[in-house]
């Protein structure tokens, strides 16, 4: 599971039966003292392995002219200290752009699927792998716009980044379902087109249907929320991926609606049965 403030007690009480590792958003555990640090130490002392999954490394950001990469030194230093402490087997982030001109956008903005973007993303990943001396995984993000005319389809874009940067894949099967539904393609064909030998980790989550954008009143088919029950079709995609490749770690992503923890535990049990 993902370690979230509101789930920490439940997770620690549940112990290491169903949950045998935890994913953390590392940005939430750096440069902090007090109760947050104490709670984190409590999790560390439980000896459950922690794996960082970032949202702000912004591997899709094009660097300024004359620069090799576009990174936030303060963030990277904080993460390096954290990684030294938790010794993760790998770390990951999304193929997205969350920072432009040093401004954090607080959301996962898609990266145009161009050959140039492949080069930029791969270059950024190589820099991160070198800086942290750890294997890196890219996650296929959900996206609601192509932004500009794509030069590559989604699977080719991901495969080229994987090959150019020699990194692993964190395959989010909910994102596959969301994108396939919103953009009208076959989720299974998409999975079959990926270089599945690169899959290390899998994410599974729930989503919201018919999100109405309050700015322009347009309705989006599916919004990736991580706050709703997992649909059968998404479980089926997990089973499909598991039948095709070896998965080292599977994560139930839940970022809101924690009240019914028993229902979350049931989802974990379903995942365990599938695997």
């Amino acid at each position, binding site marked *: 599971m993902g370690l979230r403030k509101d789930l920490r007690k439940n997770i620690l009480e549940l112990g290491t039966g169903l949950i045998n590792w935890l994913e953390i958003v590392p940005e939430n555990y750096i440069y902090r003292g007090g109760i947050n640090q104490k709670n984190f130490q409590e999790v560390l002392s439980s000896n459950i392995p922690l794996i960082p999954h970032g949202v702000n490394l912004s591997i899709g950001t094009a660097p300024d002219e004359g620069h090799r990469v576009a990174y936030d030194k303060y963030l990277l230093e*904080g993460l390096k200290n954290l990684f030294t402490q938790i010794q993760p087997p790998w770390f990951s982030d999304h193929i997205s752009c969350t920072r432009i001109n040093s401004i954090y956008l607080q959301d996962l903005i898609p990266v145009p699927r161009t050959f140039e973007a492949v080069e930029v993303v791969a270059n950024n990943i190589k820099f991160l792998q070198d800086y942290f001396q750890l294997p890196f995984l890219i996650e296929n993000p959900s996206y609601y716009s192509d932004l500009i005319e794509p030069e590559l389809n989604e699977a080719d874009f991901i495969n080229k980044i994987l090959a150019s940067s020699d990194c692993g894949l964190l395959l989010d099967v909910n994102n596959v379902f969301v994108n396939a539904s919103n953009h009208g393609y076959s989720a299974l064909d998409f999975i079959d087109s990926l270089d599945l030998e690169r899959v290390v980790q899998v994410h599974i989550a729930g989503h919201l249907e018919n999100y109405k954008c309050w700015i322009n009143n347009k309705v989006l088919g599916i919004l990736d929320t991580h706050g709703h029950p997992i649909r059968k079709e998404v479980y089926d995609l997990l089973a499909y991926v598991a039948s095709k490749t070896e998965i080292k770690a599977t994560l139930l992503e839940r970022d809101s609606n924690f009240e019914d923890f028993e229902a979350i535990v049931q989802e974990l049990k379903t995942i365990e049965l599938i695997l």
Partner: protein
Amino acid sequence: MSKLYQVQQEILNYLLNRSTDFKLLSKDSRDELDIYKSLILNSAEKLLASGFQHSHILLKSQWRDIIKLYLENFPSYSPIYFMISKNFTEFIKSDLFQKNFSYPDYLGELVELEWTKIELLNSNEDQKNKSSILNPVYKILKFNYPITSIIAYLADTTISLEDKVTTEVEADSENLFVYRDTASLQIKTFLLSESVIEVIKYLEQGLSPEEITGLLCNTENSGQISQIQQELFYLLENLKKLNILIKY
């Protein structure tokens, strides 16, 4: 300049309403980006309402416009929560905020207190100040309004939102010791008189009760000296109980 770089500049300009001139992003793409605009606003609204909950009560009807203007003009250069909150505090103090929104005169002080609580809750300064006899994580804030009473009023669920927003509050100065309790690690506050502030300053310098008494006494009347000693004794005992004084 690369095409990807230019596209991302246009994305930034669109999301932050900085330009209406777009060469690479089509009208359809910009419409699709509205989903991201809405999600960014939704999450910032929620995030800041949780940290600035009393200010949020006061500004509820204007909150979306406030957050929108904040994101457009005071964008965050850090993904770290307390730095985003600090940025928001600066926005509330800015002319831009003051020109565009209606708010009570005490809002700036209320926001200052809410920000201080966030800052101290997350502070890792205790690692640096281990030698202090005072609680290592604290700030003394001086207000022109009775902020403690204002917070209690705003938190009172029996009072209507309309009353909370429209009730005028008269200026009445207040000094507050805001600190992180060494046992619970929660943020607490303690009202200070001017004379207690003076004692705290002496304690910061590591002075003993005798030295502090000596400095507080400008009389040779032994009766007054013993009264000051007694009052200081009670004060120090109280500060110990509150985990404000930790090594005395």
